[in-house]
């Protein structure tokens, strides 16, 4: 069984947001929900200033605080390490959302869940599949596109990334691309002091 993980190259990421739009359209996310975000930060003072783009998503922690906080058993970890939310079991208490140090979880609210791209009433009837995909009142997050992964595909954000700044693969396989990069380029997890053991690493920082 694989143990899926992702590596972000901060040198390669140019903040183009292709991943963000791919994720939104892959997962049919309501307008205010993002499973992946690319944060931006200026570092330094004029004229010695540079900009860093920091892609983020659910880190699929080995020691997932969200899972520990979930009272209903809706959040669980698959055998391949993907942390999932079972929408049928989620009661929407948000305990997981305040437990996640990465702010990676969102509550699906009824109004936005029923809005189309252009906002409910005005959306033409022909705009399918965008509306009401999620169960309102539940907490959602990135699942590494488990549906795609199960078909042998990489997550949507990885597939579209123009600079290939997102590298996805099996962390248990020492020869996989992410394993090699974490090893050779000093991969660091986000907020290690939170002791969550993320399966997402940053290189080239």
């Amino acid at each position, binding site marked *: 069984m694989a143990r899926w993980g992702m590596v972000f190259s901060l040198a390669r990421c140019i903040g183009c947001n292709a991943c963000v739009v791919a994720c939104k359209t892959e997962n049919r996310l309501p307008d205010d929900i993002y499973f992946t*975000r*690319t*944060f*931006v*930060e*200026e*570092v*330094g*003072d004029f004229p010695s200033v540079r900009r*860093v783009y*920091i892609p*983020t998503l659910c880190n699929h922690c080995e020691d997932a*605080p969200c*899972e*520990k*906080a*979930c*009272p*209903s*058993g*809706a959040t669980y970890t698959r055998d391949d390490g993907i942390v999932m939310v079972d929408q049928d*079991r*989620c*009661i*929407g*208490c*948000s*305990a997981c*959302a*305040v*437990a*996640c*140090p*990465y*702010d990676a*979880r969102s*509550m*699906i609210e009824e109004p936005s869940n029923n809005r189309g791209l252009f906002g409910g009433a005005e959306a033409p009837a022909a705009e399918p599949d965008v509306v009401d995909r999620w*169960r*309102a*009142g*539940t*907490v959602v997050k990135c699942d590494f596109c488990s549906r795609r992964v199960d078909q042998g595909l990489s997550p949507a954000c990885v597939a579209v990334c123009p600079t290939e700044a997102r590298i996805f693969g099996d962390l248990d396989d020492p020869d996989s691309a992410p394993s090699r990069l974490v090893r050779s380029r000093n991969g*660091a997890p*986000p*907020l*290690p*002091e*939170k*002791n*969550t053991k993320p399966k997402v690493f*940053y290189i080239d*920082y």
Partner: protein
Amino acid sequence: MTGPAMVGDSFRLGYRFQRHWDVAMASAFFFGELGAGLFVVAMLSPAWPVLALGLLITGIGKPWFHLTHMGVPQKSWRAILRPDRSWTSRGLVGIVVFSGAGVLYTAAVATDGLVPLGEVWRIVAFLAALVVMTYQGFAMSHSTAIAIWSTALMPIASLLYALAGGAALMLVLEGLGLAAAALPALPAIGLGVTVALLVLQASLLHAAHNGTPGAKLSARLLLRGRYAPAYYGLVLGAGIALPLIALVADGQSLVGRIVAAVGLLVGFYAFRVLIFKVGVYEPVMRFGGIGAPR
């Protein structure tokens, strides 16, 4: 550079307010702790109407606001399924046990021993009430996400505010003659708990100020940011200074007790709301800071 700042919805790297636990959740916490606190304080001189009031506050107020907050209220029973790891589940178990044992104990008190095993229910209800009074603090302190919550002071705060709330209500109720027997020590207990709250607030701020940047930012929001007026005015002023003055001045008169009780409850509620409001997620990466990449 000003360094990372509160960034709202923007994609700038920085601190973001937690937005998941809101006023409804704070109200649920408030009523859960208040009812259990009243129940425990009332056990000092148990009269069934007061015990019942404590049970009602916890048993109705808390679920009411929880269900308001809950995304899928019809499935909320599921919250009991993971007591092995989730403080929410443990708390729910505590509430169920508290409600059951509490009703039986109250019935035993009311019927003067007609209900059997009164002493057992008393101990079970007391222990369950302790769980209800503290588990929310454990739920907050257990996760490292919101730095100002991530401290052992959180369950202590829950316990102290529960007791303070209980004492506040009891001061008035006892003043109205609703205790089984007079409790002359009650104003002193109230004073003691209020002083403990003062120590608690100082400790919280001290811990936050010496904590991670997120905790520091939260403390700053309480002391100098947009929440400072509410913190100074309601949590410290109404919630601590006012009861101290009222109880020292005249802890025996009904007016003094009402003033102290209102102050304590306002401070308690304000604390519950503010501690949610100032909770922040820290930036996933810090540049030029502690332990941060270059």
